[in-house]
């Protein structure tokens, strides 16, 4: 995702002058990651579209809002997307808070027994995983969406989330433990339904 910041700045400068090609290049470069981030965070395509549209509309209207010395353009756009996604989710109550019991990752019986995943079909697994990610608390969902799904480095994610890379790693570790627990629960409820 991260292209040369200098090139981004030049494209942004051209965008400010009204160069549509520069805008299209920046859009093509960043729309995918931003759309997916919003989608993973909200689980809703309409929200993801709305956020993507809003991010680039803001860029068109105020390209000078980006300050190069504060980080790459991608992080700036992700920051806007993050805030917008939060706002939209609060507005539409799409945020699905995780149940308290799921936050307790001390249930070793569940966490160590993830062989059950191999018994699921690929499509089932992806569907369960998607639901499990959506069920994570926001701060854990963010790191999974950025680091695991968008393959962002801990440093970049930390800069975006305004925390240290160590905090990102710690959150990610905890998020994965939660995901395992969640997957097992989903799978168990699925088995019950099948029977």
């Amino acid at each position, binding site marked *: 995702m991260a292209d040369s910041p200098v090139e981004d700045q030049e494209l942004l400068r051209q965008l400010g002058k009204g160069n549509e090609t520069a*805008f299209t290049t920046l859009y093509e470069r960043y729309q995918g990651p931003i759309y997916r981030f919003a989608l993973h965070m909200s689980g809703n395509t309409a929200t993801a579209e709305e956020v993507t549209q809003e991010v680039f509309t803001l860029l068109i209207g105020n390209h000078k809002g980006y300050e190069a010395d504060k980080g790459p353009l991608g992080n700036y756009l992700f920051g806007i997307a993050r805030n917008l996604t939060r706002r939209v989710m609060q507005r539409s109550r799409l945020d699905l808070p995780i149940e308290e019991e799921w936050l307790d990752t001390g249930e070793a019986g569940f966490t160590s*027994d993830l*062989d059950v995943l191999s018994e699921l079909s690929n499509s089932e697994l992806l569907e369960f995983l998607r639901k499990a990610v959506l069920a994570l608390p926001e701060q854990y969902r963010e790191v999974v969406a950025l680091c*695991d799904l968008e393959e962002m480095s801990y440093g970049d994610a930390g800069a975006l989330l305004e925390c240290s890379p160590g905090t990102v790693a710690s959150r990610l570790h905890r998020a994965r433990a939660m995901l395992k627990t969640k997957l097992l629960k989903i799978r168990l409820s699925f088995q019950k339904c099948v029977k």
Partner: protein
Amino acid sequence: MREIDPQSGDLKSDDRLTEALRGLAVSSRQGAPAEVGAGLATAFRRHHARRRLVRRISMAALAACIALLAGLMSLRSRSPHQVPTRQIVKEQPSVIPAKAPQDVTVAKAAPTPARPVKRHLKPKAANSNLAAASRQFLALPGYDPAVPADELRVVRVQVPASALWQMGAPVSPDSGARKFMADFVVSQDGTPYAVRLVQ
């Protein structure tokens, strides 16, 4: 559920989870629908068209302001030459009187020097003395504008202040018997038309 070694199971499950997350990332390698991009491109064009329009309008307004300022400045730079011209024009009627009778008299008396002898001045001398004379002579009540200038003459005499005052000359009646040297513009029949104090 099967019994497995917790540690190896944990590592295995981590790998599986990572693999599953990677699969999820790949499966969701999608971007925003094309309509979003098209809408944004339209918004971009509209935004910049509006910006260009605003810029043109503001440039035109700026140019108009500059032109207006330049016009005002050129008017100001011209005005210092015009004011004295107007002043001169305004002063001229007082030099060549058309309204005030005493000035008319002066114009007619202008050729006469301050001597008790009738003299005919050359036109050039008359012109040069006209202004000075007009400032000094005062028309008397007996002035008749119909009398031709060449029938007038100037006579210098010593006159008591009281007599001058009675004729309307600018002397104080308190001066009593004090005598003043004065030039009188008189007609051929001796009627005084104007007076000028010499002392």
